[in-house]
């Protein structure tokens, strides 16, 4: 850690504190109260926050730094999940080998796909990655059924060999005996907080992933990646071959995706092909953009934001709405509900799509830039003091050099 600047170290500390205290922070409303539905402090959702955070952090190393927009990263997530489940079927319910294998396999996959796709740039690159991902998705549903179990999805069963596990080994994913779904609930008056093993494992791994991403951003390698985004021509005439740099970034982000996939399987031991679909790839793009591509914190924020609203919005139904607006006169209440209805519950994707458009139109630098704009209004300090985050956000607004 000594190699981080003070500012980065502080950022890491803040993120560490927030993730460690998340079960408390995300549960601000007393259980059983009307607002409890806005609580996010339960293990399943918090796990998704940090796992998709990892996915987006990795994606950002590719897209945020080099500008190469991959539309196929979900393939690596899916491959990671399948590898992890197979490891749990064959070897052990301990999640360590499962996660390791998922990173390795996704890494190998990304070497191959990256090597081929990176021969082209711009939209051709995007389409190549999309083609590879769709191919993997289609194959997972058809001929690869013996490996993927097709539409049903790959699951664990009691008859699996699990050659490393003894007779008394836990039958659920665990870390040296501590089961992923084990949790302790603490009650403070009306409040109730759940601390689960699975979440804390994911959170620690996410912090590690975040730390590595800070190191990558601040390394000469990270600077080279930004240089690739800025001007490939100058790179070439400076004696630098851009291909290994972009490939390395691609593989790193692929491994992050594999790690996320492995963790998903470790938390809930099943893997399905839908994780590889191109909409899933679109989702990670959205998370990164929404948070702020090229910034350190952006992808984590974006992932949390989207997963939170997905969860909350999709839970709101007409009954909930009636509960909220019951104080209003009947006619007004019904009208308001009719207006809101299409955007919540099953209509959550509509909100997501609108949000997506609004962010790209008005806030191309994402939430991080938005926060800085607000901050600037209050501070009105000189812009030279702006952090790298601001620079990166500003870069997004300048069109790429010819």
């Amino acid at each position, binding site marked *: 850690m000594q190699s981080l600047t003070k500012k980065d170290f502080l950022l890491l500390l803040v993120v560490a504190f927030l993730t460690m205290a998340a079960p408390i922070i995300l549960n601000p409303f007393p259980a059983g109260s009307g607002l409890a539905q806005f609580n996010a402090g339960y293990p399943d959702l918090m796990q998704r926050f940090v796992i998709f955070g990892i996915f987006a952090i990795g994606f950002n190393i590719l897209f945020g730094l080099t500008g190469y927009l991959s539309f196929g990263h979900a393939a690596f997530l899916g491959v990671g999940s399948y590898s992890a489940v197979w490891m749990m079927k064959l070897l052990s319910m301990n999640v360590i080998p499962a996660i390791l294998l998922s990173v390795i396999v996704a890494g190998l996959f990304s070497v191959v796909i990256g090597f081929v796709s990176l021969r082209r740039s*711009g939209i051709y690159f995007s389409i190549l990655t999309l083609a590879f991902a769709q191919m993997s998705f289609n194959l997972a549903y058809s001929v690869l059924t013996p490996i993927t179990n097709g539409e049903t999805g790959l699951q664990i069963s009691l008859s699996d060999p699990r050659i490393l596990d003894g007779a008394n080994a836990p039958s659920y994913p665990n870390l040296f005996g501590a089961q992923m779904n084990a949790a302790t609930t603490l009650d403070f008056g009306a409040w109730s907080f759940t601390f689960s093993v699975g979440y804390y494992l994911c959170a620690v791994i996410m912090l590690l992933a975040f730390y590595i991403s800070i190191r990558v951003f601040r390394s000469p390698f990270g600077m080279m990646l930004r240089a690739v985004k800025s001007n490939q021509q100058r790179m070439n005439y400076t004696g630098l071959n851009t291909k290994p740099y972009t490939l390395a970034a691609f593989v790193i982000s692929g491994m992050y995706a594999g790690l996320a996939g492995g963790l998903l399987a470790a938390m809930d031991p099943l893997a399905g092909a839908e994780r590889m679909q191109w909409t899933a790839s679109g989702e990670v793009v*959205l998370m990164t953009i929404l948070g702020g591509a090229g910034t350190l914190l952006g992808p984590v924020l974006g992932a949390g934001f989207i997963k939170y609203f997905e969860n909350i919005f999709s839970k709101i139904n007409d009954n909930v709405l009636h509960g909220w607006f019951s104080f209003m006169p009947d006619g007004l209440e019904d009208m308001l509900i009719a207006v809101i209805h*299409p955007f919540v519950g099953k209509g959550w994707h509509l909100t997501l799509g609108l*949000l997506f458009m609004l962010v790209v139109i008005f806030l191309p630098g994402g939430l991080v830039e938005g926060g800085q704009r607000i901050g600037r209004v209050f501070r009105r300090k000189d812009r030279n003091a702006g952090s790298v985050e601001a620079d990166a956000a500003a870069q997004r607004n300048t069109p790429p050099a010819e």
Partner: protein
Amino acid sequence: MDAILLQLLNGLDKGSAYALIALGLTLIFGTLGVVNFAHGALFMIGAFCAVTLSKIFTLSHKASEPSGVDFLGKPKYDDILYIKDWFGETAGAWMLDWSVPLSILFAVPIMLAVGFVMERGLIKHFYKRPHADQILVTFGLAIVLQEVIKYFYGANPIPTSAPEAFRGSFDFGVMLGFDPNAIIYPYWRLIYFAFSALIIGGVFAFLQFTTFGMVVRAGMADRETVGLLGINIDKRFTIMFGIAAAVAGLAGVMYAPINSPNYHMGMDFLVLSFVVVVVGGMGSLPGAVLAGFLLGVLESFASMNEVKNILPGIDQIIIYVVAILILLTRPRGLMGRKGVMEE
């Protein structure tokens, strides 16, 4: 031989749809320089124009006179279609039967309007933004459009039938001198192909023989220079966007009887259409059409049992495999121009 011909024919309808969508995508990309991820949604909206018209035609009211009694002995009132009231029994029945072709008339103004609104309201603000931003904002729009359709029409596919006269199949093989039953081909698919050919021909003729088309072609070749000539290129490009939207919409209208429209059909086609555009070469109209048919036919061949037995799963991935091979050997696609979409 007949088996090969059959697959060739089978590939034509999908190939036509790919070609039409890819043509519109290329028009938009070539003229406006915008990568439009919402183009599949336009195709889907077209299909739902057909659904809407047939829904309108089936609007009914209860007859004023009972036609008899039901099994409980109560008087029974028939549902009477409004169109039969307005246009008479025969004409009404005919209109209902022909609702899909009639939807073309209904869809053209709607699609043009949708196209104009989209271009003026959203796309024009993205001309100078990076391609990544264009992709993202139109991707968001595609989600919105598809969710709106889902909200109004539900998530299930809505069967929409072709006119009675074109339902069913005919023995195309006999007409070509093959054995009976060797090539059974549905009428509507042939119509779809002919319709697509007509539209494609129309678009090309429009670009080739009108002044408007000439300006657009010049703009596709070199936008800045044409702008310098004092021609109001922006207005023409707005119209071009409307036309591209209408082409996608018409492709959707006529596709409704082939595959029951559902809200995500646009996305399904979009991904493949983008592959088609890239294979054909970004910015090349003939390339888009050629690649559309080529990939449609290849997909159909790959789904033959003889092929699948040798290469299991090939039907699922053939398009992507071909796309990858072509992009790696011909960096700009089949007929792409130099310098398009490359930094």
